[in-house]
């Protein structure tokens, strides 16, 4: 999986895409279908939450990097304050990113959160607090990723704009200086 993919309409990183979707789908499927097979809430809880946590980790550390070139994390600096760091690839590579990859990335991210919300509403209607707990945990994991990546993307756009203006400014000044030195 590297950035130098052949041009085309296919996914550039099929394996990463697969993993990106795999754990989300597995968590949702297990949650929905498990009532048919397992009586024990504990198993349902642990497995679903575990799959959701795995998915969170995969999206944050692997597919975010590979599919859209974004990464976010939190640090605590010397003064003891918490700082959110966002990282993105430069403009060149960003434009080289496969469109299908990033489409898949963003859409599955949003759709999963919506699916969990719907399931949460169901369990609310049925007044099942335990299942609401499961849904709550999975939902918070999805939302955390959504917020992180959205902020990261906005940050990337802002940075690119700053680059652009500053580059233009510096080239402009250098052009003027050259003009003056020639004259």
């Amino acid at each position, binding site marked *: *999986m*590297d*950035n130098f993919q052949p041009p085309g309409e296919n996914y550039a990183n099929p394996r990463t895409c697969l993993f990106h979707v795999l754990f989300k789908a597995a968590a949702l499927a297990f949650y929905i279908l498990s009532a048919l097979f397992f009586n*024990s*809430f*504990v198993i349902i*809880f*642990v497995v679903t*939450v*575990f799959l959701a*946590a795995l998915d969170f*980790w995969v999206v944050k*550390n*692997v597919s975010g*990097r*590979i599919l859209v*070139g974004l*990464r976010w*994390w*939190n*640090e*605590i*600096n*010397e003064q*003891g*304050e*918490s*700082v959110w*760091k*966002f*990282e*993105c*690839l*430069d*403009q*060149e*590579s960003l434009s080289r990113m496969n469109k299908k990859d990033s489409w898949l990335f963003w859409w599955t991210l949003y759709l999963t959160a919506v699916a969990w919300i719907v399931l949460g509403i169901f369990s609310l209607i049925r007044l099942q*607090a*335990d299942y609401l*707990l499961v849904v709550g945990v999975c939902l918070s994991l999805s939302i955390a990723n959504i917020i992180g990546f959205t902020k990261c993307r906005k*940050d990337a756009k802002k*940075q*690119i704009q*700053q*680059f*652009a203006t*500053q*580059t233009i400014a*510096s*080239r402009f*000044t*250098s052009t003027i*200086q*050259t003009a003056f*030195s020639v004259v």
Partner: protein
Amino acid sequence: MSHGDTIPLHPSSQSDIDEIESLINASVQAGPATVLPARPPSPPRASIPVSPSPFIASNLPPPPAYQKAATAPPPPPAPPVLPVSDAQDGRRQNIGSAGFGPPPNTLTEPVWDTVKRDLSRIVSNLKLVVFPNPFREDPGKALRDWDLWGPFFFIIFLGLTLSWSASVKKSEVFAVAFAVLAAGAIILTLNVLLLGGHIIFFQSLSLLGYCLFPLDVGAMICMIKSNVIIKIIVVTITLVWSSWAAYPFMSAAVGPRRKALALYPVFLMYISVGFLIIAID
């Protein structure tokens, strides 16, 4: 002579300047201009790989990149550059950008490497919080690299152990244990914040989760031996251990007059979990 670029170039001869200049022009979208001024007198810690800058030359594996950043000589092929938005604290960010660095390295960086790094962070956090070590008195340093994976595993483990030990109502026990611990950690953190303490939300959650480790051990022992006396003794010991682990962080976060207010709920929570462990049969 340079074309009056405002980009601070490294000390170099004329040919180097030309080479660098051509690279700048070639990869102008990479915007080296903004990244360099962003960290002017940068100590080598801050390792933003910038295309004209030395860092990219490295297809170095992460550990060396951790240390040096800006010293290797230029001619890089300008693989994708990673501008970081506020790049002041180089120490931890090295892990991030080194993990992210020259992409061929980190994209193929086996996921296994990331896993290993996260696992080792859990272990080191655990050692910092629960076992005696010189950093305990300084909460700012001790749990600097907080993470929530450790607490997650510990809470789940505790819930599972309690559930397994219970002969009836296993699901309720699990759900209650998990909900109490999770909600308890959040509420305790809010408590400290409302008392005017200086604590970071996730750091505190992380801390309270790691302090569950002794209770996990206690619960496991109680699962194996079900003599009540032994249970009481074991739970008391682990309870004291947990409280001792949590004490420095919580007390340092609030002013001296409010220490008891901040600490009392923590002890209460651990005591109630302890009772849960004892009472399960």
